[in-house]
């Protein structure tokens, strides 16, 4: 089992990572010319009496020294007050959470399917490594992987939505939604193409890891021993090789769950899907720094959390994996 010391150590590192992220966002906000008052109430701050502006400053703690403001900022972030978007004037956190569910509509099925497909093909390809079939599959995967995601998406829209007209060109629902309300099949019709594309990508990513892991396992002594014992190939594959080869997949799978925001920024942008990725693109276009910082903080929280979970899981499964012993 995992020791308490190891767990504590990991937690400290994760905490430190998040503090680094917070420090970056804090200083960026403060390096911006002007402060909240002059940025937000630009039209008002010139006409308002100085006393009121000062009162605002006091109320929001803008007159405090930087260190106290920093502590205040940390407290606010922990309390879920992540600031307001410049372009929309809404609280950043609620905006992000509003988009999160739409991202999940694409992500959950795509991640599950992608991991399953990638692992199966990768395991098979690694088991057959060196053969003609493996060589062919491997090359196809290189080609798929080398072509940028957004280009696949644009091509898919061009072929399946424009020329064949099987799918809509983008968006998440038809215009009829205004009169009839959201319809499951309508949303599914819009979501299908992006989900297929994302599955495709997640599967190719998993394929490599699984194939490499399988190849490494095949070279291990216990596989040779199993062969020497006279076990049949199928038993070796299922009972000996696959089990051990799956270990790195734990880490990868956790990571993929962490790729919640950036994993699909291109696909969401191409399909105008109203998730976090599309929100990021819009925030970038509007140069909406508070919103982008909010997205960055949420993404770092998710990623740091996922890395923590991955580390703990893999060290619980394989006690040889510990920090600082990577020599």
């Amino acid at each position, binding site marked *: 089992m995992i020791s308490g010391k190891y767990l504590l150590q990991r937690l400290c590192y994760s905490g430190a990572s998040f503090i680094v992220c917070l420090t970056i966002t804090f200083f960026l906000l403060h390096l911006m010319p002007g402060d909240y008052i002059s940025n937000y109430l630009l039209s008002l701050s010139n006409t308002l009496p100085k006393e009121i502006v000062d009162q605002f400053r006091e109320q929001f703690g803008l007159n405090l020294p930087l260190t106290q403001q920093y502590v205040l900022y940390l407290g606010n972030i922990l309390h879920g007050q992540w600031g307001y978007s410049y372009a929309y004037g809404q609280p950043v956190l609620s905006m992000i959470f509003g988009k999160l569910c739409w991202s999940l509509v694409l992500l959950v099925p795509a991640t599950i399917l992608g991991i399953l497909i990638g692992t199966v093909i990768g395991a098979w390809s690694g088991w057959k490594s060196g053969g003609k079939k493996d060589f062919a599959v491997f090359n196809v995967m*290189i080609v798929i992987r080398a072509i940028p995601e957004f280009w696949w998406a644009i091509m898919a829209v061009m072929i399946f939505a424009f020329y064949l007209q099987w799918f809509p060109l983008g968006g998440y629902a038809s215009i009829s939604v205004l009169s009839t309300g959201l319809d499951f099949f309508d949303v599914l019709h819009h979501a299908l193409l992006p989900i297929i594309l994302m599955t495709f990508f997640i599967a190719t990513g998993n394929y490599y890891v699984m194939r490499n892991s399988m190849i490494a396992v095949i070279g291990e002594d216990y*596989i040779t021993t199993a062969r020497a014992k006279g076990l049949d190939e199928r038993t070796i594959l299922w009972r000996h090789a696959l089990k051990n080869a799956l270990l790195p997949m734990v880490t990868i799978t956790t990571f993929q769950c962490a790729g919640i925001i950036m994993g699909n920024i291109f696909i969401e942008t191409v399909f105008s899907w109203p998730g976090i990725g599309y929100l990021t693109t819009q925030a970038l276009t509007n140069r909406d720094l508070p919103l982008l910082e909010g997205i960055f903080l949420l993404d770092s929280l998710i990623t740091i959390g996922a890395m923590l979970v991955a580390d703990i899981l893999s060290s619980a499964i394989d006690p040889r994996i510990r920090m600082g012993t990577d020599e």
Partner: protein
Amino acid sequence: MSRKIILRVSIAILGIFIAIALAAPLLAPAGPYAITGKPLQAPDADHLFGTNEVGQDIFAQLVYGARITLLFGFCSALLAVVISTSVGIIIGYYGGIVDEIVCRAIDVVMPIPMFVLLIVLTTFFSPGVLQVSLLMGLLGSVHGIRIMRSQVLSVARTSFVEGAKAIGASDFHVMFRHILPNVMPLVMVKFVTTSQHMLVMGVGLSFIGMWDTSTVDWGTMIQNAYSGGGVALGLWWWILPPGIAVVGISLALALIGYSFEEKFNPRVGVNRI
């Protein structure tokens, strides 16, 4: 056998792209901004790939865009590889407290999502292409340090390094003349694969609107064509050339990378007992 042919073809494609980027003023004397025709003209003899929504020649934009796209990819990859190699060699060679500090710092920095951080930083500083590529190289080097370090560790304990130290070679000499040449294959592989990643990422970033619209690179061209309705109106010549160019160079780099990797790291390839 077929691997060799693939490698040669890929290197040839890469060479052609670099030549095109270098010879841009010769190939398109009017420059990427000149309005040389009617808007949205289909390809003909005057305009090899037609024109865009304001009548700029797409071929000229493609040729000049190659400069920015390639510059971005190679600059950031070069910086990332130089940083990760030098830091990796230093901490791997000296070990001890320096190694410990750097490794723990990497542990802290690793989980920070670099891609979003890059977007945030760019939004804040709104820098030029070169600055962003250097920033990306800096952020991208963190991951490589560990890989280089472990490679250096395996070299630093070999007998020829011990021997060089024993005859009184300076640390610098050992690192530069004995360790570096031995990790060079990995550095090459890293450089090629990192350039591919960075190049694709750079095009992706400009596709989501990283630069202002006056910058002409392949990503902005794709973005203009896509948001301008190039797909929805079936204006294929507007959107296909930059996309095919990106796919071509990315494929070429990826295949070169894999060929190198297979050559230098046999474990990736055939390993069946």
